């Protein structure tokens, strides 16, 4: 019988080793698996490469991993925003490597990794600093940059509702990067607000099919956010 429920956030992330590539869903304050990130921070795996749209603000989420010195590299479109003090500090002291990726290229690189595509040509970034060193091609007079898939060892994602097989439904714009990351990681762990028995999710409304999800957790919230 398939049941992907895990009792605690701590158990759900316990096998993430030092040096792992970890995708983390979310955009700004929306759709971030804050409980899983807090469990990962307490777990203490080091030298992590974090793939996420932002790099966290204040003391929360990815910022807390940067503060505790657990991050070796960030792959990100918008690391700097109001309150991103830990990213700025680690970047300035040179302890964190940054790979800056245009946002749509980031989500598409993740999507194609999950879809088994070997690369794609995008007009985004053509002729700019972010295309330096990359292959380019002109098709019908328009320039394109070759971008490669981006996969990870683990994805930590946030959804609103799961069933015990791991089918997922999101809340409003909290969807953002979560569905693509679920596809692109060897192990996908979903933090959710509730887990329903089989048959209670409307199959017409499932956004992430269970095949992309390995573990679902819905522990009582401990890490309350503002």
């Amino acid at each position, binding site marked *: 019988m398939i049941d992907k429920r895990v009792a605690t956030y701590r158990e759900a992330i316990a096998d993430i080793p030092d040096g792992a590539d970890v995708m983390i869903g979310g955009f700004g304050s929306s759709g971030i698996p804050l409980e899983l990130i807090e469990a990962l921070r307490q777990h203490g795996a080091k030298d992590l490469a974090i793939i996420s749209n932002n790099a966290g603000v204040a003391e929360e989420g990815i910022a807390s991993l940067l503060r505790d010195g657990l991050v070796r590299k960030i792959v990100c479109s918008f690391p700097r925003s109001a309150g991103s003090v830990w990213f700025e500090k680690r970047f300035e002291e040179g302890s964190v490597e940054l790979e*800056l990726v245009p946002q*749509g290229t980031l989500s598409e690189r993740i999507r194609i990794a999950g879809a088994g595509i070997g690369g794609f040509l995008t007009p985004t970034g053509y002729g700019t600093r972010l295309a330096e060193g990359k292959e380019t091609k002109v098709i019908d007079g328009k320039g394109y940059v070759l971008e490669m898939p981006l996969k990870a060892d683990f994805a930590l994602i946030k959804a609103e509702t799961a069933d015990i097989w791991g089918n997922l439904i999101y809340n409003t*714009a909290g969807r953002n990067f979560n569905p693509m990351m679920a596809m692109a990681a060897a192990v996908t762990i979903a933090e959710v607000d509730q887990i329903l028995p089989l048959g209670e999710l409307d199959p017409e409304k499932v956004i992430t099919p269970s095949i992309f999800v390995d573990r679902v957790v819905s522990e009582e919230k401990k890490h309350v956010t503002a």
Partner: protein
Amino acid sequence: MLRLSSEEMARRAAQDIPDGSYVNLGIGMPTKVANYVSDDKQVIYHSENGILGVGPSPLPGEENPNLINAGKQYVTLLPGGCYFDNAESFAMMRGGHLDISVLGAFQVAENGDLANWATNDDKFPPAVGGAMDLAVGARKLFVIMNHTTREGEPKILEKCTYPLTGMGVVSRIFTDIAVIDVTPEGLRVVELFGDNTLEEVQALTGARLLPPLTS
């Protein structure tokens, strides 16, 4: 010389947003454009994180922490609006489905090159977000910016000196003193605000301006 305030610039840009269009407004001054689109037009706003049909700010106490715009501000969804993932959202941009994107800029070149994501100051860690995708994707790219820097240096140039966001992407520039189109012939003045003259505007511009077409 007449210089519009940022609110007046937003109002002027709003006049050029057609009824029925799908529009993405960049962070900062471009976001203000929505406040001035007249009520007789129906415009559907796109937010890069995955929303079509973005509505106004929620009432205090009714904020949903998941429902934010690209500037990380709380928003609402209008009837008819919908949500989608980030890859689909950027397919809307890159695929040319958005009618208009409105962005701020550090510099625009006479061939339509846009520089709006980084300066040459390496002390600041870079951040690009969706700017490069918005620049290449929308059918029309409006730039809204002051005509010169705070120091009075021109921001419209023969060639950008800051790192590029996109090549040959800008359609129309709304500044505080004029409206200028990027055309195959060069930069064409569309409108001079108040009694501003072509010579006055030219003096503050780092590339050659063509006079308004007489109709």
